């Protein structure tokens, strides 16, 4: 009796990873690709239909059909070079700003997580960063720091810092009390607690913050460029130029390509999040 009872526990094989309960039964890889493409096709079709059927020929420049946008924005070599060059400048500024925002934001959050007084004294200003009207600040930054790369990066840092700070702080503080007790029991130093417990535990939340900040950084880069109207031109300036020229095709191309860059950034962080979740045994 004893022997038969004890045997299974000691020789038990690891349970195979449980099949995840699916909320939506079609989350297999093909559907992940096919579904967004289907939506894309629908949107483009609706766009084409509106342009051809709703807008009179004479004012079609208000909403040119997709084929015109592709022909004049992407296939025309001069327009394409112009837009891609501007986009590259915008992306450089955004990535640089995002990187700085991530480093600074995580540092801020770590400092705030270490002492309540630090959190109380700094957190309101992190919120101010989020609520301050960026349109009002951009010209000021132009006056103070000039209109070149560095000044644009500062704008990007400003708009993308807050999500990094809040999400990282939330993650650092989400550690279970028992896990803190474990580290207390074994006399962990403050640094050990941070490095071996709080930061790894915060990683998924941090990456969620990075995802939001990525999009913000690109918007920040475009907004700075749009208002500066000086220095190396990026997408913001081109949008303004195309608006004045009524070149809606080019304007839409610039807009769509900028969104695509934001999307790629989001996907990159999503991939990273997937890896971290697997590391934490969540996927």
């Amino acid at each position: 009796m004893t022997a038969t009872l004890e045997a299974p526990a000691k020789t038990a094989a690891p349970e195979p990873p449980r099949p995840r309960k699916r909320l939506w039964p079609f989350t297999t890889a093909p559907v992940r690709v096919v579904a967004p493409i289907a939506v894309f096709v629908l949107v483009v079709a609706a766009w084409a239909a509106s342009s051809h059927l709703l807008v009179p020929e004479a004012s079609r420049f208000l909403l040119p059909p997709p084929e015109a946008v592709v022909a004049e924005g992407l296939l025309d070599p001069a327009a394409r070079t112009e837009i891609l060059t501007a986009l590259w400048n915008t992306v450089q500024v955004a990535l640089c700003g995002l990187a700085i925002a991530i480093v600074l934001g995580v540092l801020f959050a770590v400092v705030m997580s270490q002492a309540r007084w630090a959190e109380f004294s700094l957190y309101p200003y992190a919120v101010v960063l989020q609520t301050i009207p960026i349109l009002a600040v951009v010209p000021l930054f132009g006056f103070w720091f000039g209109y070149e790369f560095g000044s644009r990066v500062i704008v990007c840092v400003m708009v993308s810092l807050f999500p990094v700070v809040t999400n990282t702080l939330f993650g650092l503080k989400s550690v279970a009390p028992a896990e803190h007790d474990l580290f207390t029991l074994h006399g962990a130093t403050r640094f050990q607690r941070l490095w071996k417990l709080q930061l790894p535990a915060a990683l998924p939340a941090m990456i969620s913050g990075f995802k939001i900040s990525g999009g913000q950084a690109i918007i920040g880069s475009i907004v700075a460029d749009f208002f500066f109207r000086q220095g190396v031109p990026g997408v913001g300036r081109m949008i303004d130029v195309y608006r004045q020229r009524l070149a809606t095709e080019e304007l839409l191309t610039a807009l769509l390509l900028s969104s695509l860059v934001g999307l790629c950034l989001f996907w990159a962080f999503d991939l990273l999040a997937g890896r971290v979740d697997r590391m934490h045994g969540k996927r």
Partner: protein
Amino acid sequence: MSIDPALAFRGTSLTFANGTRALDGIDLEIRPGEFVSLVGPSGCGKSTMLRLAAGFEAASGGAVDVRTDRLGYVFQEATLLPWRTVARNVELPAELAGVPKAERRTAAADAIARVGLAGFEQHRPSQLSGGMRMRASIARALTMRPELFLFDEPFGALDEITRQHLNSEVGELFVRDGFAGVFVTHSVPESVFMSTRVVVLTGRPGTIAADIPVPFDFPRDPELRYTAAFAALAAEVSAALRGDRQEAAA
């Protein structure tokens, strides 16, 4: 019984900052070779006694004497870090203490083998069953080579069969290592099966209602649970627990 206690509560009281009185004048000594279960209703302060012993809380009155720094603590949950493998979780205490890598690896492998998890060193906690996670948690405490081993309701979330296995396995560790054990539980049969003494606590603030010696020899056969002598002791513990309730109602 002339050995110094591994853990002693001397008139220990604890009142939390919000005014809740958790413990009131607890006197209790636990010596090496004793395995003491603390039984009582929820909120009677039994877990708080372990937290005082481990230094997570400080007593507001009286004293708590711990005679060793080799302290094992098993939490209610397995409390394994999900991003670490079983081996890396088990070697965490040594890692925090700055023990060289090779040495702590060997100690961890040894502890893992002792709880029957050999072969699962590289698994992550999410790949293990609840019982196996708890074994890993016990292995982590074993790396401290504890002289005082504290268990805070560790098996409450496990199914009955796994729980009984782990009861026997902790019993084996106790026989082999001869530490002083303190085991917090809600379960009367579990407390009688595990212990050399059952201490019954009454609630809010916690005080000791009964201190009942359990005479059965170690190692204990799982069949012991179905003997008349066992049933009589369990009845005695239950009566002590009930006596408290009637008093509270009166």
